[in-house]
């Protein structure tokens, strides 16, 4: 009983710890004047919003969203069969595959991007959406595969078998059984894949060829103009928070 009573209090503490930095960010974004050592801003205003949205931010937001969504969609298509094969232990020696999956995660994305630059220039892919998507896939694909892998295994195969013997064709089984049953895992994979692509700085900088991407636009302001940096960071966070809410809702549906 005592531990149950403690749960809400712990939840409040955890929520506060998580929310405080966000609150500080909101204050910073709308603080037109905030001189030290004052605890609160002297003057609130929208200078940060005007500056942040005055340049390439709109285009960067669209570019980043477009690349992240395409990357996740393609990663899902590739990772799905890979995760099924690995999850159902159909490979006799999966070790090399796991090593290959881990390699892009061990190498910084800027190094990956730099390594790809020369080839992408030769192929005319630098600064293009397909080029950026291909570069982002090198880091997103392992994450998506590994997350899907956690939900693809004997339990999913078992409910799929159940669907088959109850008369569901493979396509109807996919829509009525597999996807709903694996929804929490798919949601988590989509969220993580989107966030990895959305926040990728290295590959976007190396292969962007001047094309505005949100992390690349944000970074110069971090040292120079904290108010604009805070405003851009809030914009940066918006899709992540939306994706998180959607994923948590999906995650409430157990297999």
């Amino acid at each position, binding site marked *: 009983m005592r531990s149950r009573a403690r749960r809400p209090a712990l939840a409040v503490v955890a929520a506060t710890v998580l929310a405080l930095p966000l609150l500080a960010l909101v204050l910073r974004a709308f603080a037109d004047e905030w001189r030290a050592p004052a605890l609160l801003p002297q003057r609130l205003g929208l200078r940060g919003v005007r500056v942040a949205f005055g340049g390439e931010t709109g285009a960067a937001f669209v570019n980043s969203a477009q690349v992240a969504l395409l990357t996740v969609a393609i990663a899902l298509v590739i990772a799905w069969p890979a995760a099924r094969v690995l999850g159902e232990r159909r490979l006799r020696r999966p070790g090399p595959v796991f090593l290959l999956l881990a390699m892009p995660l061990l190498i910084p994305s800027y190094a990956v991007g730099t390594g790809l630059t020369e080839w992408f220039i030769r192929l005319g892919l630098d600064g293009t959406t397909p080029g950026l998507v291909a570069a982002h896939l090198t880091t997103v694909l392992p994450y998506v595969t590994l997350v899907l892998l956690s939900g693809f295994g004997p339990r999913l195969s078992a409910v799929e*078998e159940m669907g*088959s013997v*109850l008369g*569901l064709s493979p396509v109807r089984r996919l829509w009525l059984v597999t996807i709903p049953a694996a*929804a929490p895992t798919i949601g988590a994979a989509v969220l993580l894949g989107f966030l990895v692509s959305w926040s990728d700085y290295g590959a976007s900088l190396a292969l962007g060829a001047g094309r505005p991407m949100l992390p690349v636009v944000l970074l110069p302001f971090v040292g120079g103009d904290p108010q604009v940096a805070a405003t851009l960071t809030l914009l940066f966070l918006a899709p992540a928070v939306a994706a998180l809410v959607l994923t948590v809702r999906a995650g409430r*549906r157990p297999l």
Partner: protein
Amino acid sequence: MSRDGLRCSDLTVAPGGTSPVLRGLALEVTAGSRAALVGPSGAGKTTLLRAIAGLEPLTEGSVLLDGVAIDRLPPHRRKIAVVFQEPRLLGHLAVLDNVALPLRAAGVGRRERRRVAASHLEEVGLSGLAQRRVQGLSGGELQRIALARALTADPLLLLLDEPLGALDPNRRGAMRRLICDVQRDRRLTTVIVTHDRGEAAELGDSIALMLEGRIVQHDEPRALFERPVSAAVARFFGATNLLPDGDAMLAIRPEHVILEEDGELRGRVVEAVYAGDHVRVVADCEGRSVIAHVAPHHAPRAGEEVGITLPDERLWRVPPRDRR
């Protein structure tokens, strides 16, 4: 369509390309009857069920259902429903929608499928749970829901894999009666897998014993208990007294052995173990063990000398090895 029931011929199945689990197996189940498939763990019972359902590819052999070869059809076209040992219900659907799933597969409209599903749910005694999610329901309730879902598929053949396995003893009786009732009402050809010989006798119109990937005897329940075709069958069905008789063995069940003062054989009790409704007495009879089940109030004690009678009408002559 003729009602020939199930006919499996020369089935060989080697899951994952390993050594065969089923080896030239043959099984016939009369239309409208219940066959209990029994055997020790690893005998291949579940593999056989999966092969019939199309979930395990055949290396050789054929499966005919009501005269139609189904072994090349995908699982969803075989008109077979399976109730697995674990109910495999979908957690994101309400109980009623789980039961209605086969009708959704068939493209039946929402109102009609809910009506049909509700009637099947009522048949298994769970209409009160229609709108509940499956989380938090008991093992017995989940198994009944899985049975209702299988009935909703309106199959030609019902396969049940250890349907009582996860239930406590008190709920087994109710589930057993339910399975028998719904099968009898529909005259639905049914195969029930179990590893428990008593359960097999209660559930099956016939029992097929599987040993090492083959059906070694398929007959009415009493025959397997009292007229086993081999020493292995006799042992599995509890006829644990196997006495040499020339080139064969004489089998007799422990409950048919009579301990009496003027018995035709003499023996000394080496063990007497109380087992609730009987005492298991092991007597040494000229160097051979003879096991008898006797009523607790008549049981001799360890060390006592007893007379042993093996009634001729209860003795059954069996070859020492299985016929292959």
